[in-house]
């Protein structure tokens, strides 16, 4: 029997292409909407239009948002992680837990505000770099298809440079981490609320499930040790053959010899 092993769902390049092309045409429309006959074009007003459009995209793009946009309910969040507010609402859980979750949500809002300032700065910097490059290049507009695509390449290069310069700064990196940490804390706070509710209703909690999972893992490990006392020996026929021979008393009595399996496994649990 044969089958295709690769059946994972795929979001669709055609949809992504359509969105990117639409943005490209928007940019072109902005460019060609400048007063006719102005040569060289008015790069300053064009740059400011570009910056505005660009900032809007930055605020809404999942890719530019990444983990720091993963807060529940915020634009650009990755669906499902961390999850949104509990269906029953924070008010359904005890007051202190609900209060903690709300405080985390408020903090996320503040951090998102800080992030928006970075997006704005990146957009302004991109436009300035673009204008400087166009002016340096003479500034004549080529309205052919290839000319438009070349213009777009220049714009993307400027945008990436501005983005790279900003997102490597310490304050941005710190903000990125704070956003992710706060989003994760919110996830855990919501889970704690869910556990409280579950406990109240006599349902198994996440903590109990985790404890069982640990027990199962430990039992499996013990079972493996009993059924395969020396996995390394099985993997090394030559070593196994040597071991089958009588050991010299000196070697057998060597103090501190390691067990065949090595040190006990220590999980980060």
């Amino acid at each position: 029997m044969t089958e295709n092993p690769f059946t994972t769902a795929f979001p669709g390049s055609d949809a992504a292409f359509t969105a990117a092309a639409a943005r490209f045409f928007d940019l072109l429309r902005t460019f060609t909407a400048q007063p006719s006959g102005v040569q060289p074009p008015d790069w300053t007003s064009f740059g400011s239009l570009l910056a505005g459009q660009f900032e809007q995209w930055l605020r809404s793009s999942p890719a530019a948002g990444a983990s720091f946009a993963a807060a529940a309910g915020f634009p650009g969040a990755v669906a499902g992680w961390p999850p949104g507010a509990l269906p029953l609402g924070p008010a359904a859980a005890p007051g202190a837990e609900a209060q903690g979750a709300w405080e985390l949500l408020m903090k996320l809002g503040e951090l998102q505000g800080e992030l928006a300032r970075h997006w704005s700065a990146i957009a302004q910097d991109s436009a300035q770099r673009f204008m400087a490059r166009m002016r340096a290049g003479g500034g004549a507009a080529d309205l052919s298809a290839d000319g438009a695509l070349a213009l777009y390449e220049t714009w993307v290069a400027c945008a990436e440079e501005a983005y790279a310069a900003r997102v490597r700064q310490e304050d941005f990196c710190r903000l990125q981490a704070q956003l992710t940490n706060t989003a994760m804390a919110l996830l855990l706070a919501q889970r704690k609320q869910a556990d409280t509710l579950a406990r109240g209703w006599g349902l198994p909690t996440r903590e109990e499930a985790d404890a069982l999972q640990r027990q199962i893992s430990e039992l499996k490990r013990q079972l493996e040790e009993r059924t395969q006392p020396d996995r390394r020996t099985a993997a090394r026929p030559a070593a196994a053959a040597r071991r089958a021979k009588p050991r010299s008393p000196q070697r057998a009595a060597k103090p501190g010899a390691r067990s065949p399996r090595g040190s006990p496994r220590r999980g980060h649990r």
Partner: protein
Amino acid sequence: MSDPGADSGRLFLELGSRAAQTLARLRLARDVRVGCSARRAVWSDQRTTLYEYLPDAPPSALEARGGGGTTPAAARGKGRPLLLCFALVNRPYILDLQPDSSLVRRLLEAGFSVYLLDWGDPDDGDRLRDLNDYLEQGLGACVRHLLAAHRVPALDLIGVCQGGVLSLCYTALHPKQIANLVTLTTAVDFQTPEDLLSKWVRELDTQLLARAGRVPGELLNALFLSLMPFRLTQQKYVRLLTGRADQRAVDDFVRMERWIFDSPPQAAVALAQFVRWFYQENRLMRGTLELGGRAVDLKNVRAPLLNLYASADHIVPPAACAVMGRHVGSTDYTACAVDTGHIGMYVSRKAREEIPQRIITWLRARGRVTSPR
């Protein structure tokens, strides 16, 4: 004198026509197939599966199941097995994406017995699985299975990206089991100045992360795209409007797209350990890493080592890989920077021609007695 209104009208007409043509090609490519070499599972435990690639089978993206037991077909022949270990954060089929871009196929053609470790998808029950579990119960189990099946004391190992890091760790812990080690885009120094990922995760709270359960693959996709968001989410699509992308090029493009957006979820504990121990504390390079209570000393990596990395890598900077030679114990160490980017290492023209040939030549020079099929 040209009329700007007419010029812009022609521009939109021309580009609109190209966009319509490109969109039609993209839609035709929707069902494009990824993975091209026949293979069969020879070992599996929970999520991890060891595949054997079948050199004599017809070239198709089909997977054989059952009918042959679990003894590798290649074990009936001779020679050391060659195991490919990919990253946890991406799918390994990039190594066998399509017939003209398949490291697996080139290795098979060169006569190697090729195996691939597929980590699979962790589910919520794997959320406590740690890095040592992946190393010993995943990679280690595959290595042990192949050594027993082929009746050899050691195999050849190719570790790719994060899989290269795991391969280095495994080789350091079990040096006698690895005859030759090849690493592709594998970092040893996780704190080089160019490493944006490293900067971003430096202050991440890994204790919170470890408790988060299962981290969705979509989050990792977004993280990788956000390293260069305009190039990776906008420009690459607009470039299709140059009009030079025929149906075959669009098919290739969509195959890559499928891989890029197909990251598996991550077991949070293992991911948190990787972030903390490697990125935040740089333990591998500093010699302070311990896995399962055992010190991971790169000086124990004494097997011949070929280190291939990309000179324009935006995910694993070349400087992060280039230092490997200073830390491993191999006296037979070869490093080579390939003029391409991270993904280019797998699918670019360089990947199609230069990288497989380098690996094959290097392995053959180190005791492989194989002949092209």
